[in-house]
């Protein structure tokens, strides 16, 4: 199967602190991988590195998207190659309306209207982005943007945290419908596991202290983490390198 994303032996520091240690990971076209791990284990850092955001120092390895090395590319160039991200904590930008971004992402006015209606964001379109948005509203706005952007690989950083149950169900459906499209791939960070009820993820990975273990069913893995914690989960499964 063609790979969408390959991370090869990636090591990353912030300051002098090593955050990611020799990470390797492959996500195939059409595949959804779920990333578990305790706070501070490096999950968000991995997503930000793939996206090309600043503040991190790569000390080794490479990132390949659709067969092309992307390490030297700027974030917007990566977006043009088909990457998209849903932020865990998006910034507030005074004077910049959600609608400005949304109408840049899609020229299809009907699609914008339908999706913002579905995600209860119609009134938010004319507001400064994230300014005064609740946690759930920010997540819905992130989802609205990434779906309209229509990337091939979605990096979702805790898409459901802070969202009420009713909206998790709506968001889950929207996301699932999107991911069912041909060859869409995703790498999803989740703590609550709720999102797993809506999407068909085949593979779960766990990151602990900047190291990655990838194993089978995310649902089983989540159950095991719930029962026995992250360390136990690591011991239970044989490390499976995806290279």
């Amino acid at each position, binding site marked *: 199967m063609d790979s969408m994303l390959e991370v090869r032996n990636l090591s990353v520091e912030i300051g002098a602190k090593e955050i990611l240690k020799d990470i390797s990971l492959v996500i195939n076209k059409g595949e959804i991988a779920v990333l578990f791990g305790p706070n501070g284990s490096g999950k968000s850092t991995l997503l930000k590195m793939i996206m090309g955001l600043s503040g991190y120092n790569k000390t080794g390895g490479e990132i390949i998207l659709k067969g092309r090395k992307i390490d030297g590319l700027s974030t*917007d160039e990566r977006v043009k190659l088909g990457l*998209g991200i849903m932020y865990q904590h998006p*910034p507030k930008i005074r*004077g910049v309306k959600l609608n400005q971004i949304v109408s840049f992402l899609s020229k299809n006015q009907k699609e914008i209207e339908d999706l913002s209606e579905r995600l209860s964001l119609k009134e938010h379109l004319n507001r400064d982005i994230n300014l005064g948005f609740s946690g759930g509203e920010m997540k819905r706005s992130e989802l609205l*943007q990434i779906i309209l952007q229509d990337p091939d690989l979605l990096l979702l950083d805790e898409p459901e945290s802070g969202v009420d149950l009713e909206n998790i169900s709506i968001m889950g459906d929207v996301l699932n419908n999107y991911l069912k499209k041909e060859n869409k791939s995703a790498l999803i960070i989740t703590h609550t596991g709720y999102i797993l009820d809506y999407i068909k993820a085949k593979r779960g990975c766990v990151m602990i202290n900047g190291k990655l273990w990838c194993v089978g069913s995310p649902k089983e893995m989540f159950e095991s983490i719930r029962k026995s914690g992250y360390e136990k989960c690591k011991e239970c499964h044989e490390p499976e390198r995806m290279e």
Partner: protein
Amino acid sequence: MNQKEWNNQFEPHEIETISSSGMDLSEKERSGSFLQKDNQVQFYRSLSEGIEIMSTEEALKKLPEVREYYGKNFSLLNRDFPKDTEGGYFVRVKKGKTVELPIQACLFLKAQGFKQKVHNIIIIEEGARVYLITGCSASKAANEGFHLGISEFFIQKGAYLNFTMIHSWKEDVSVKPMGIALVEEGASFISNYVCLRPVREIVMYPTAVLSGDNARASFNSLILSYPGSLQDIGSRVILRGKNTQAEIIARAVSLGGKVISRGHLKAEAKDIKAHLECRGLILSETGTIHAIPEMESDFRDVDMSHEAAIGKINREEIEYLCSRGFTKNEAQSIIVRGFMDVNVLALPELLKKDIEALEEKTLKASF
């Protein structure tokens, strides 16, 4: 003046700069116009009943009652003012009149090295409501020009004046506006100031005196500062009546110039409410923004506050927009435009669109 007369009197680039200071040459969406070039009053006319427009000199000659207004606001604050002015506009809106479309005044500098000095008198009679837009601009030929603009505003009981001043100068022009507004009981004075083009130096510190109870004033400004320029721009409100309210909001972006953003709120009565806010964005290594907010009160029962924030564009905000596909330059430009949001100004819809378009054009050229 019709289009042909404009074309006869002004070069195309002059017409462009006059338009960029908010003038609607067609006058379709205006209630009156006044135009002065250097020291020559070119034309004026009122397009609506209840509005008088003429040159200040003419008003002082023809209308004896206007004489008592000349210099009145300066004596009120024991301040002196230059008397060697030539021209300037007189606008009076009759009691109870509501003017839907703005009145426009244009002060234009054309001759090289010319020192334009004007004295404007604006009287909004009891209960009247009006928008007034003043555009000040300079021809390419007006090298080393100077503009002094004295404005005395009288906003009488229950009246409303929304005054917008747009400066559209050039690199070697120095400017000194001196404005004082006297705001009577229950009246409102809204002052919007926009300066998006280069200038050598602007020094101004307009003052509103809220003399009557329940009066209110608000000063809002958007300033773009280019390398080599100094803009020392402040606003002061003296809250003299009970239950008066004031707000001063400034947004300044330095592309390399120096901005001094002053604000002074002075409570001289109880139960007043006043807020001052200055936000500055420095986009160049050589830029300077100096915010000087001041608040004074002799009373305990007042509610006064200020906030000031200066810095560069947040990297996280740029990256956020880049992760949606905008280039770094596009992201910066979007953030600056958002920062210079015209909604900061209290503008009527009609002028908002004009100023938005003007800002769009200016910022496009600067990035």
